[in-house]
């Protein structure tokens, strides 16, 4: 194989490995779950994405074909990584954090995840009492 193509594959694999390592290292070093969510998001998209780009170039050079499976995996991980992070953050907030301790948002309404069903109905009719706001 050409030396430049080998160098490109090696560069992509090493970049992916670096992102995966730093992502997991950030997950064990940072103090709280909200900070710990940052690392695995980068490891998911850029780490596995780097490996998949290296794999695409490798199979394109050795077998001379363009494979779609790697693009499918990357696309799937790109779409599901934010959903996962948001879901974990929401579950953590409802389990551990109280709305009184959080910073107050501007305006009449409080945090949306802590709003009850009656508040949502009243807000759609513009009659919100702001009862979900912390006093």
């Amino acid at each position, binding site marked *: 194989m050409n030396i430049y193509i080998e160098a490109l594959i090696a560069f992509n694999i*090493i970049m992916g490995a670096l992102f995966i390592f730093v992502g997991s*290292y950030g997950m064990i070093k940072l103090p709280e779950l909200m900070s710990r969510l940052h690392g695995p998001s980068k490891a998911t998209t850029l780490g*596995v994405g780097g490996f998949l780009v290296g794999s695409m170039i490798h199979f394109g050079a050795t077998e001379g074909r363009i494979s779609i499976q790697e693009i499918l995996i990357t696309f799937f991980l790109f779409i599901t990584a934010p959903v996962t992070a948001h879901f974990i953050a929401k579950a953590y907030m409802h389990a551990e954090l109280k709305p009184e301790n959080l910073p107050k948002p501007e305006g009449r309404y409080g945090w949306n995840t802590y709003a009850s069903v009656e508040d949502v109905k009243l807000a759609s009719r513009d009659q919100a009492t702001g009862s979900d706001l912390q006093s």
Partner: protein
Amino acid sequence: MINYALAIGFVAVSLALLMNLWRLATGPTVMDRVLAVDTMVINTIALIILYGIRESTAIYFESALLMAMFGFISTVAYCRFVLRGDVIE
């Protein structure tokens, strides 16, 4: 040159898996452990892809895609259970 890069990749992903295992054992809250499990699934996908590059065969990408789908669905199921007490209502 690719063999050296693959060796570095294998070592890095294995160390990342060990770190995730540490967080899984230690993490004070439940969501720390859910995050650790999800990250372990992602690192296993990376490990399978590296093995597929090393063996120069493309048959391992299907298992990587399957693991990605299962990992995502399992994380969503864990979070729904913690939020609601029930996975499918």
